[in-house]
């Protein structure tokens, strides 16, 4: 695949043609939800909402890893950062999310050792270079990221590294789809399924969900043509009353997914009930570190307690994550809550719905 083909997936002429087709075929009022933060950003960046006919509403779902991380988990991360013996290693977005009393960024400013890493390999290097400190990696993300974190635990195990730990706050996507499909208030007509989560779990992982709810589903890539094509496929399914589970990102997603990634994930983690911001506790939608690897489990080693505290007053992140509200309906949006001074995680992360709205909405 050369960059040339990538440009073809951004071809304005082909985009216009697909949009015309969508306009021709779309009759019913429908609500489609994307459940991937990168799709949210791509939809905004490419101005896709403004190009669609009025019959189609696009909703942003819980697809941003930072945004769905529960308040109690953020607070636990901050508590870990306060320890003198700990170096926190984390992906960048997380450090600005306000906890109940503080954020990782505030801890860093007050002298705590919080380091942003690009991958878990960087975190392992920090552990090797600092044998007298405990390096704690904050494991957030979906099925795409979880295998990379599992791989770091396996590597630490093989290297006999005694000072590398992981907090596993990962989330699994298919269980969240069920929660969304069951919510009568949101009333979703079709799902734009995530691209790279699907690279790992494959089309097959959605079959139980699809068979139970019989709701139109299409796996999408990230380029404008990918997204428009997916919307067109969903419109066809809905107009023809023929719900299907389709793959619109065949160049990257197979039926089986990536068996190596699945195997690494399954070796290290097992499913567990997990709390999501906005969606509450969803059965078997999280991952915990298996007993064989518990020596690397920061939650056990440092006795991390998750305590539920109130989410920021007035913040509508929870309702925005489920598509129940859009950012301008939040009383804090653009007033108290901006990308410079975010109050909720949806404004913190660049792929949060509020941040995407703030950046792109007024220009459309």
């Amino acid at each position, binding site marked *: *695949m*050369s*960059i040339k*083909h*990538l440009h*073809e*997936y951004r071809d304005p002429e*082909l985009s216009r*043609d*697909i949009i*015309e*087709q969508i306009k*021709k075929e779309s009759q019913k009022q429908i609500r489609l939800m994307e459940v*991937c*933060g*990168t799709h949210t*950003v*791509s939809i905004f960046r490419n101005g896709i909402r403004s190009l669609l006919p009025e019959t189609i509403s696009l909703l942003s779902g819980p697809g941003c890893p930072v945004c769905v991380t529960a308040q109690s988990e953020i607070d636990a991360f901050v508590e870990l950062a306060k320890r003198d013996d700990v170096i926190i290693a984390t*992906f960048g*977005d997380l450090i600005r999310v306000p906890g109940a009393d503080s954020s990782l960024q505030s801890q860093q400013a007050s002298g705590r050792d919080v380091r942003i890493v*690009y*991958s*878990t*390999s*960087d975190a392992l290097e920090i552990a090797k270079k600092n044998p007298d400190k405990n390096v704690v990696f904050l494991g957030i*993300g979906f099925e*795409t*990221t979880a*295998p*990379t974190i599992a*791989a770091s635990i396996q590597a630490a195990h093989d290297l006999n590294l005694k000072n590398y730990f992981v907090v596993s706050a990962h989330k699994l996507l298919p269980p969240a789809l069920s929660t969304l499909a069951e919510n009568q208030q949101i009333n979703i007509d079709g799902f734009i399924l995530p*691209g*790279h989560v699907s*690279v*790992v779990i494959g089309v097959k992982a959605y079959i139980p969900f699809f068979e139970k709810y019989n709701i139109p589903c299409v796996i999408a*890539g*990230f*380029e404008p*043509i990918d997204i428009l*094509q997916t919307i067109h496929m969903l419109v066809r399914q809905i107009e023809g009353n023929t719900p299907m589970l389709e793959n619109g990102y*065949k*160049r*990257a997603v197979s039926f089986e997914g*990536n068996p*190596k*990634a699945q195997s*690494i994930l399954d070796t290290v983690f097992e499913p567990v009930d997990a709390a999501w911001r906005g969606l509450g506790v969803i059965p078997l939608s999280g991952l915990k570190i298996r007993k064989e690897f518990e020596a690397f489990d920061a939650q056990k080693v440092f006795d991390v307690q998750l305590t539920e505290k109130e989410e920021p007053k007035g913040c509508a992140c929870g309702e925005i994550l489920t598509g129940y509200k859009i950012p301008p309906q939040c009383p804090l949006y653009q007033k108290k809550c901006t990308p410079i001074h975010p109050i909720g995680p949806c404004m913190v992360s*660049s*792929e949060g719905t509020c941040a995407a709205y703030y950046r792109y909405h007024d220009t459309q």
Partner: protein
Amino acid sequence: MCLAIPSKIVKIENNMATIDVDGVRREASLLMIENPKIGDYVIVHAGFAINKLNEEDALESLKALREAVSLIFDDHKQK
């Protein structure tokens, strides 16, 4: 955040690859890739290649899409 741009493998050493995206080079682990080869295009996430891209499928999808669109447009123009 997913990086949607395909990365080209330009060097492989100890199951680590040097990958190139439009001239920008980085390291990525090949732990999750079956039979990686120099010249393969991969999707990279958080320092790990998570899949090889299938060029045949990429071209086929585009071709099918163009054909579908042009058929409808010819139809449209005739009306």
